[in-house]
């Protein structure tokens, strides 16, 4: 492993350690949300997880605003750490927090279905794929759109930015792109949807990499 990968790894661990209480609160919130979801959304677990994903990311992006508020940026930049490593670590910390939150939320949701539904444990591969893939993709897109804004501006209401982006994504993603109507949520990923989804996933990864590149560029030019 190269020395910069080790530094990024240490930074991610440090980020997770520094914000562990906030992250735990966030996960408690995602568990709570998963538990209280209504029987309607139980039937449509895949689509409703988009909202859970959005909520999780809404909560975890502002975690990083603490860097500016408390001059934590100044501390890390005074250590022998490159700005590129700092940016990459923030992206991956966000993704890791989001994914763990999603997994927790889905586990809790599945357990709830198991104990409360007569349909028992019938989550098939398609459902699991869609249930996880939609919010995961939305997390990547939200991260890609929000973090460059964070790295460009010193002070910004990141809550507002995240909220607006998540509203936009929910609209485009859950309703338009997937053809999901609020009255008729679908669970199964049909054959017709597989190719667009793979294209979407690849585009999302491309967006993520472009966003990372832009953020590194912004952050390298930023005066602290």
């Amino acid at each position, binding site marked *: 492993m190269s020395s910069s990968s080790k*530094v990024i790894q*240490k930074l991610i661990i*440090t980020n997770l*350690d*520094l914000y562990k209480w906030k992250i735990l609160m966030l996960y408690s919130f995602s568990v709570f949300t998963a538990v209280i979801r209504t029987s309607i959304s139980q039937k449509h677990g895949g689509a409703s997880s988009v909202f859970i994903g959005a909520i999780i990311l809404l909560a975890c992006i502002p975690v990083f605003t603490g860097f500016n508020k*408390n*001059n*934590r940026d*100044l*501390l890390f*930049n*005074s*250590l*022998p*750490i*490159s700005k590129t490593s700092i940016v990459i670590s923030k992206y991956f910390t966000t993704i890791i927090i989001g994914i763990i939150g999603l997994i927790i939320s889905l586990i809790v949701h599945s357990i709830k279905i198991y104990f409360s539904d007569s349909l028992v444990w019938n989550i098939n591969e398609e459902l699991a794929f869609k249930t996880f893939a939609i919010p995961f993709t939305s997390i990547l897109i939200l991260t890609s759109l929000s973090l460059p804004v964070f790295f460009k501006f010193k002070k910004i209401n990141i809550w507002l930015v995240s909220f607006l982006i998540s509203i936009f994504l929910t609209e485009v993603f859950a309703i338009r792109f997937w053809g999901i109507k609020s009255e008729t949520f679908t669970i199964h990923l049909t054959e017709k949807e597989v190719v667009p989804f793979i294209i979407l996933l690849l585009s999302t990864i491309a967006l993520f990499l472009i966003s990372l590149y832009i953020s590194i560029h912004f952050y390298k*030019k930023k*005066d*602290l």
Partner: protein
Amino acid sequence: MENVLDIQNLNKDYGGFKLDNISVSLPPGHIMGLVGPNGSGKTSLIKIILNLILKDTGDIKVFGLDQQKYILEIKQRIAFIHDDHKYFNHLNLKQVKNIIAPFYQNWDEAIFNDFIKKFNLPLNKVIGEMSRGMVTKGALAIAFSHHADFIIMDEPTASLDPSSRRELLDLLRELMQHEKRSILFSSHITTDIEQIADYVTFLKEGKLVFTKTKDELSESYALIKGGNDLLNTGIENHFIGIRKNEFGFEALTNEIDPIRKKYNNSVVIDPANLEDIIYFSTLKDLK
């Protein structure tokens, strides 16, 4: 021997404020005091040295290495101590050490523990509950534990009470006697700088007024006192700053010899301390 810090013709324009053509050098094993009123550019200069702020033009070398190209290698040998510890308020010293230590290749746990004992610091007390003096000592312990050759301190005494300030300055003096480290120490408290600095660099409104050794400083500047009748003779052309009252004037000059030749019998020439120099230099320019 190579200078620890070499800044040549540094410029940085913020729009409303700029650092203008700054050139400063610090030989190894010495302490440089960076003085100037609030807003004079001290913190900006320090941040530029650390590459936290990007310079517009000019050359900066630290340990003889280009400061932008070799910033990570340089930072392995630098410690930055500043006044704002808010981001660590909820952590204890051990946790702070655990965050910082992994990023240094030369971290020495034994030295850290020695300094913790020497400074009598509580490892498990959160930073927010520690006194400012203790926090600064903790930062010094961390700095020495990764064998920093160059310690940059931004206003480290600003929020300390007088006894803690004296204690910190004594400590720095003591540590400098045994080590070949260099320190860049910014402060607007001139007495602190006078006590420990070998070199004094004075910034005013982003411009370098002077960078000199303390001896050069005491030889270069003097306080001139005399009656108001002298003010019609052109003596003011030799002054940097002047304070007048109904009984006479007091002024700072860096042209001691011409004044001594022309006005020796009519004026009193006293040595100027750093505070005098800064006070008169920040008065409205005469020239």
